[in-house]
């Protein structure tokens, strides 16, 4: 609820900036989540939303997704859980479709401790290639720094890879989007002086539509 209010506030803030594009959209979300080993694997679906703002050389988007994960077939997991994930991406355009990207990601799990809550700061690059008027391909890679988990531990290696597609009107009034995001988080915890590797891996696909506001 709190995050939804934040998203609405961001949209309200962005709307008066009519000189640039503001896109808002809804998405269907599909996910695959794995933790610790092959026995703990989940997949599920849910709904999400996105607000995107372009302002001169800067652009950014805020995404929220709620995914209901169920134990995958063949998985030893028994509990289902709901993941509420908030993502922020802020970009600064360099040249030729390449942008520097930073941002924040936060994943809340309900019920608690079914899997790990997770927060991190992302930093990386994004490539945007226009196939034609209103048709764009996106590719991005980020390092997830300062990772924190509800169960403690660290993640010296946490990477994120993304592939996106946007097809719509040349004037950006509407468009259909598809976005793939893969996260690998090599979490390590120390229990009673012993280090344990507890890796986490999540793949999420978002498919939706957005409308453009402003000029």
């Amino acid at each position, binding site marked *: 609820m709190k995050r939804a209010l934040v998203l609405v506030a961001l949209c309200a803030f962005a709307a008066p900036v009519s000189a640039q594009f503001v896109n808002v959209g809804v998405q269907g979300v599909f996910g695959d989540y794995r933790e610790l080993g092959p026995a703990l694997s989940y997949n599920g679906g849910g709904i999400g939303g996105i607000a995107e703002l372009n302002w001169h050389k800067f652009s950014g988007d805020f995404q929220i997704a709620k995914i209901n994960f169920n134990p995958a077939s063949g998985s030893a997991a028994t509990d289902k859980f709901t993941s509420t994930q908030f993502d922020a991406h802020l970009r600064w355009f360099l040249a030729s479709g390449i942008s520097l990207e930073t941002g924040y990601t936060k994943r809340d799990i309900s019920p608690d401790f079914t899997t790990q809550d997770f927060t991190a700061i992302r930093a990386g690059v994004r490539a945007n290639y226009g196939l034609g008027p209103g048709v764009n391909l996106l590719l991005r*890679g980020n390092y997830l720094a300062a990772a924190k988990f509800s169960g403690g531990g660290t993640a010296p290696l946490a990477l994120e890879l993304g592939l996106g597609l946007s097809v719509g009107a040349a004037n950006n009034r509407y468009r259909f989007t*598809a976005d793939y995001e893969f996260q690998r988080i090599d979490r390590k915890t120390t229990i009673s002086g012993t280090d344990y590797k507890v890796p986490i*891996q999540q793949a999420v696909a978002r498919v939706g539509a957005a409308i453009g506001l402003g000029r």
Partner: protein
Amino acid sequence: MRRAALFVLAGLSAAGVAAAQGTAPQNATLRRAVQAAENLNLPQAITLANQALGQHMNATDQERAYSLLGDAYSNQPDGFDKAMNAFRQVLLINPERQLDPNRTATKTLVAFNMALSTMLLVRGVTVDSSSFVVGQGAVPIHFTVTSPARVHIKAVSAKTTVNIDSSIANGTVNVRWNGTLPNGDPVPAGDYTIVVDAAAEQNTFSAGARVHVSAGTVDTLAHLTSMPGYSKLPDMEVPPRSWRPLGVSFLYAGIAGAGTLALENSQLGSANRRELSLVAVGVLATGVVMMLKKPSPVPAQGNILYNKLLDEQLIRRNADIAQQNVTLRRQVRLTVAPAAVTK
């Protein structure tokens, strides 16, 4: 004695006392004065003319009465000054008044000319009919100034006033007007008054002549809307179909797929890759569609530059044409014809 009487009679006639005006005076007393003069009874003519001047008369009768007095006084002993004053009154009423030297007594002529020389008058403003190309001719203007004065000549119409000449002049003056405005353009066609203002000390006098100015037609060059022999090229052009969209789609999907495979943690087993497949298939399908789709027009920089150069040439040509038209418009043929003379 008989010879002198004939001169007086001839002078009276020339001065317009009797037949020169063509019609009999309207004033009865003046008619009697004229009759007395024709009978060579000059004292009675003078008496009756003075009586007539004390009565209400029109300008023609007044001029005739003063003329009669001038003529009669000039033939009286010690009447020269009175004759001169009478002729001054005649000239005030009609500055263009002339005496025929062949039909006027010498004394009368002397008195008239003396009167004329003591007044500042501009007489006989005439404009010759003329037709000329502006810049290659002029229209002659003539007039007479009776005493030294600064003379300013101008052409006045309802729309404009053009200064023609300004100088010190005396006697017969001939000037030429080239029919142009100060900027060199020909004066607009229409009715003008050639006004001659004369000023000497406190005395001023103005006279004018009306003329009509008509202008011939001028063949000017039409402005160009395009460069002859050249046509503009389209600013946008459709590029040929290309494999590039499909190639880039494969590249992006391949990087994402290979990256996913590389990043997958072997400890977690193999993922089902449903999410990757969903988006990658969409990307590849879009690449195929964009490859097959007719490309959208894109700006043709070469054509845009070519069109810009054409536009610049067109602007230059039209500027040249405009300059030529200015010259052509100045070479118009003006025809100046006099109208009625005004005072």
